[in-house]
């Protein structure tokens, strides 16, 4: 039986049409009347369904016969090979944000509060006619360290004691370092 031809019953249906009907690829009402009149066509449609049931049930039974242990071992192998999903940048950012949403919001609010306080309490714009209060920095370092001493000569004849002398003269500030083996630096 193939597609209807002019020398056949114009109402006859091809096997392909019957198969389409059986598979729900045609409007069910289209062939319903024909199938009521043609028991052979009805039997073919039933046979198609039967083949389907056999194949489906057979394959599902085949799957049932595989032991659970095989699938448990399969999962262990899968689990051992899982890597982090290769997500895109936005997906990763989104996932990260979802996970740390509360932290991000808390951080953002805190930063905003600090910025607001900084704006409120920031020093005013300095008047060009007066030195800025904030610009005056008090140097708290020891006096000897405020200016790097210029060493003109350093003599260390096996000495173990050191005497540093800072001097201001007409050439500016100078420091003299004495290194001596004398245990009494005051004797220098």
């Amino acid at each position, binding site marked *: 039986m193939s597609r209807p031809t002019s020398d056949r019953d114009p109402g006859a249906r091809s096997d392909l049409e019957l198969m389409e009907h059986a598979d729900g690829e045609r409007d069910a009402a289209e062939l319903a009347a024909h199938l009521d009149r043609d028991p052979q066509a009805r039997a073919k449609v039933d*046979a198609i369904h039967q083949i389907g*049931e056999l*194949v*489906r049930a057979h*394959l599902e039974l085949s799957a049932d016969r*595989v032991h*659970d242990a095989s*699938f448990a071992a399969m999962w262990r192998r899968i689990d051992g090979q899982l890597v982090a999903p290769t*997500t*895109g940048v936005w997906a990763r950012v989104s996932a990260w944000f979802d996970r740390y949403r509360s932290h991000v919001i808390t951080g953002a609010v805190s930063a905003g509060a600090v910025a607001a306080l900084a704006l409120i309490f920031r020093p005013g714009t300095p008047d060009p006619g007066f030195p800025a209060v904030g610009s005056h920095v008090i140097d708290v370092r020891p006096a000897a360290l405020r200016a790097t001493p210029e060493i003109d000569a350093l003599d260390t004849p096996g000495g173990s004691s050191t005497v540093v002398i800072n001097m201001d003269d007409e050439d500016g500030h100078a420091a003299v370092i004495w290194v001596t083996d004398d245990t009494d630096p005051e004797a220098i």
Partner: protein
Amino acid sequence: MNKPGQRASISTHGRDPVDDRELVVAAQRGDRDAFKTLFERYHRRAYALAFGVVRHQDDALDVVQDAFIKAHKYLDKFEGNASFFTWLYRIVMNLAIDHLRKHRKVKPVELDEAHLEPDADEPLLPRILGGNPGQALMDKEIRSRIDQALDELSENHRSVLVMRELEGLSYEDMAQAMSCSKGTIMSRLFHARRNMQKRLLDLLDHPSAELVEELTGSAAPAPDADPPADDTARSTRAARSHR
């Protein structure tokens, strides 16, 4: 027999506490337990599909394993437009077909590609095993014959038949999955069904004594018994023998 991963336990009960979409989203964030739940739901169904195509248990297990690894790897590509299993089954199907191609020794000849119109001399046959295929499946010989018939189908015929019968895919979906025309799908499906019928009818024409006893509860007929007059008579006999 509703083991995890079976169709019945998934689609008909509808009482899974967490739906697939939520599990997928959780798995996309790196939740392995969520992905494991998806595995537990669908592994047997995926196996049935793979086994239907590759026809070897170990190969089918390999295909399913690779499919889940691949699914996890590309989980971000799943956008939720289709169900998770629909997406998974495409991966399984592609891997199963790839597996066949890699292990194929001889390129199969697809006669139906050149003759899309089914042969007028090879019509579909009305009925095959009476009205109770479920009972028929209890018979080892029939199951063995179904296995043999599936093995003897070409890869393309078998793939289409399995997709259609196991997952109920439309012709259009199958055409997309196999990158061919809808007409080619129809032709492959028609020939696959016709060949399955022929194999199973051959079994009924030449039944073993065990099968006859199984089906009729009586002794086997004499070897020279008259064959049935036509297919309908044969199927009627088979149907009667089931009752």
